[in-house]
């Protein structure tokens, strides 16, 4: 880490990740931010400690008589092969590389020099990488729910502040923001939204179904 991270994840988002109730797309941004931020790594460990306390305190259920011996019998079985998880590659932390299946992103242009690469998604949300040329604004957009945006390279500013590498912006539906990339190296972010981004200008909105954004 070359400079301190000043924008962190809210505790409840980390708690939801720890408990497994956060959707896959957001979980990816949480895992990527925690990879870069020890403050949030400690928050996650604290939430997991609380989870462990709850696990121990919740009512026990008796297990079948043979379960222990069946488990002991399997201790010497060869462990199922687990492919080594992809490592960090350049600006992409390990969980992002895992979502990319170990390959660097294949960018698709979405206009204005902005490129994107969708890396995951399910009913609950979509995660994507965005590549924003220096000085370029991401088209005016809103979103229907929570949006998490983590800076991997460069930086951006919007009405709420300035975001550097490792910083994460947490936005809700109320925020209509226009992130503009810093001068210098292109800005690369990984972002998760719970719904397709809705662009507020006519042309991008028309193209939205085509690009899947």
């Amino acid at each position, binding site marked *: 880490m070359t400079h301190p991270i000043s924008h962190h994840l809210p505790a*409840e988002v980390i708690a939801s990740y*720890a408990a497994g109730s956060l959707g896959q797309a957001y*979980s990816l941004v949480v*895992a990527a931010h925690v990879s870069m931020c020890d403050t949030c790594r400690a*928050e996650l460990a604290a939430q997991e*400690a609380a989870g462990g306390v*709850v696990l121990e305190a919740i009512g026990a259920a008796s*297990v079948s008589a043979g379960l*222990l011996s069946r488990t002991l019998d399997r201790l010497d079985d060869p462990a199922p092969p687990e492919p080594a998880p992809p490592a960090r590659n350049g600006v992409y932390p390990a969980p992002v590389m895992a979502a990319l299946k170990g390959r660097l992103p294949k960018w698709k242009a979405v206009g204005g020099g902005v490129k994107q690469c969708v890396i995951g998604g399910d009913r609950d949300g979509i995660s994507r990488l965005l590549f924003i040329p220096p000085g370029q604004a991401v088209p005016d957009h809103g979103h229907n729910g929570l949006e998490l945006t983590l800076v991997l390279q460069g930086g951006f500013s919007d009405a709420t502040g300035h975001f550097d590498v490792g910083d994460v912006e947490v936005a809700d539906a109320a925020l209509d923001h226009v992130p503009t990339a810093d001068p210098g190296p292109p800005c690369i972010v990984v972002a998760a939204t719970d719904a397709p981004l809705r662009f507020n200008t006519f042309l991008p909105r028309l193209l939205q179904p085509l690009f899947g954004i």
Partner: protein
Amino acid sequence: MTTDPKPDYSEQTQWMLRIRDQRDKRAFAQLFGFYAPRLKGFVMRAGAPAAQAEDIVQDVLLTVWRKAHMFDPARAQVSSWIYQIARNRQIDVIRKEARPVPEALAIDDETGEDPDGAEVMALEQETDRLRDALAKLAPAQREMIERAYLGELTHTEIRDATGLPLGTIKSRIRLGLDRLRHELKELR
């Protein structure tokens, strides 16, 4: 790392260190005796039917055995570590897709070791405090906390389900991370 577990560590930590350092199956059976019924109760509360619950319990405890080398009591208590494995397992089963996990911090055998056990003891004490705090909550509040960590609440619902004081355990863990980062830097 084959030193005997410190006698003042909790039973759970001692079992886990014997599993990690001596591959002790008796210690595994003791750990199983303590955690298997709790895990089963936990995953059933989270919605698994009884038969599937026992499969998950077995998977989780086999993972504990196989990944024991990754256990570091200065960074996570046994209960916290098993909670993580259980959540990952249950999510992988439900979603049929691996949950994104953060990069592991490189722990090499001798680094990250806590020679006098002070960090381990401090973390155990903080965890005891959390246990007391949970026990003292009013029933309705405790129910909300349980639901939060069972994964039944959304992040916005969790925001309102306050009750467990996590500030001191968080600072404690953060200090340990700073020390580890420092050691990793010196190794390079």
